[in-house]
């Protein structure tokens, strides 16, 4: 196993300087995500306009994988429609869990940097927490989601 597969330059960069790392207040939709295993906490906030995710931001604390994943997610999802965001979630989920899929990680742009996570089963939840939280926000669930 090569650590560089997991901690690629993009991941290290997004961990050190996360994008869209801020609160949106008030936000149209928001949700809190919590991973009890490692104590990661993420808040995901978004504003919708004409069916598009006009603004998307996150705040919280977590490991490099979870922070970088959330940062990359905000970049990838901002400006998309809700349907596109949900589709992206499915694709990322398949990539992280190594599920049989016709998605080529290369089609996922920078998100492909997370492909290495699948070799580290204990870290998959770190990378997926932000996505679960985004979906929870889109589902307008007010309860906190957990990865357990």
């Amino acid at each position, binding site marked *: *196993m090569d650590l560089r597969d997991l*901690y690629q330059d993009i991941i290290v*960069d997004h*961990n*050190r300087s996360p994008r869209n790392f801020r609160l949106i207040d008030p936000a149209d939709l928001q949700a809190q995500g919590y991973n009890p*295993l*490692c*104590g*990661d906490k993420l808040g995901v906030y978004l504003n919708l306009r004409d069916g598009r995710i006009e603004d998307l931001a996150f705040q919280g604390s*977590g490991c490099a994988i979870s922070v970088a994943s959330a940062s990359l997610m905000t970049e990838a999802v901002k400006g998309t429609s809700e349907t596109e965001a949900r589709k992206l979630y499915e694709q990322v989920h398949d990539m992280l869990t190594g599920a049989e899929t016709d998605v080529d990680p290369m089609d996922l742009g920078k998100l492909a940097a997370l492909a290495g996570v699948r070799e580290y089963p204990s870290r998959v939840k770190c990378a997926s927490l932000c996505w679960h939280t985004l979906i929870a926000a889109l589902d307008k669930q007010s309860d906190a989601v957990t990865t357990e």
Partner: protein
Amino acid sequence: MSTSSISPILSPDSETWAENIRREFPILDQQVHGKPLVFLDSAASSQRPRSVIDAVTWYEEHDHANVHRGVHTLSQRATDAFEGAREKVRGFINAESTSEIVFVSGTTEGINLVASSFGQKFIAEGDEIIISHMEHHANIVPWQMLCERNKAVLRVIPMDERGELDYQAYLDMLGPRTRIVALNHVSNALGTINPVKQYVAAAREKGIPILLDGAQAVPHMPVDVRDLDCDFFVFSGHKMYGPTGIGVLYGRKSLLEQLPPYQGGGDMILAVTFEKTLYNELPYRLEAGTPNISGAVGLGAAVDFLQRIGIDNVQRREQELLAYATTALESIPGLRMIGTASHKAGVLSFVMERAHPHDIGTILDTEGVAVRTGHHCAMPVMEYFKVPATARASLGIYNTRADIDKLVEALQRVREVLG
């Protein structure tokens, strides 16, 4: 207690002494991600020496049958092995009688047993239960559940930034409504060795029973329950080089006698009719159902192992290694130790600037170094220190200075990888 070392020529201060012990642990002789395994997670669960593995295998291959139930030879042998283990445990912690040694599945079950049985009988609305800020969840949640059930009040002894408890606050807390104190002997998250004898004396003086969670004490220092004078003492086999699924609840006989049964079933009875059940004597009254016989056999072998090495030698060796490791870790820039009490066991909890413990754990693993990361089932401790988690290296009798050097080396990788 025995102080003889496996090799009388070598002092426990020598690295060769530890290396010889290490060779008794088959699992340690392997590579992880192409690197020799450095196991620094004994506080979560320690490894088993060959003698424990062999004792369990011998039992499974030659002696197994149900205990206390048959006249046939194997049943007698199994009973002898099981009760023999009880006697070994009794001697190891210097209890007065084997009737005070209750086999349970582990520390967690031992505490739940007391919270349930003692609670049912002695805890009423408005009564108080004292625990501390540095408890493992296993010594928090059962009491919280009891408080909820019986409308009792949980009180918490505060802690300072070194990870030491406030004794004066504890004395002030001991009041007319206090019914029991449940206290960590050694903290798994911080390493703090609490001066429990003092705490026991203060409670006993007021006639208040006290339970000690000894899960992290028994493997690392001499424990004498009569000298401690505690009422309950609980620990797990798997943290003291024995198997999982077996543990011990020691209880002062006069108190155990007053406890209602924890679970009902076979072995805990003398006679059953549909009108009434006559309960068995101690300790069987508190051990319903077929027990973990092979686990007890393995635990007995673990006691033999620790006595062969000498628990005083274990303590001396680990204290020296702890000092070595503390100095080594503290010299790493950006590393902050969590838990700096003046008396500590071999637990090194730490955080690093700009590196989440989870990443530290993964990076160390690829270097073959196994440490625990997370909240260590002590979330209130994490909250106190305002960290989501820590990385924790914990020492066992098989660890050497070379292991610590590898840890330090691997920690250098963390900065390289995370930038």
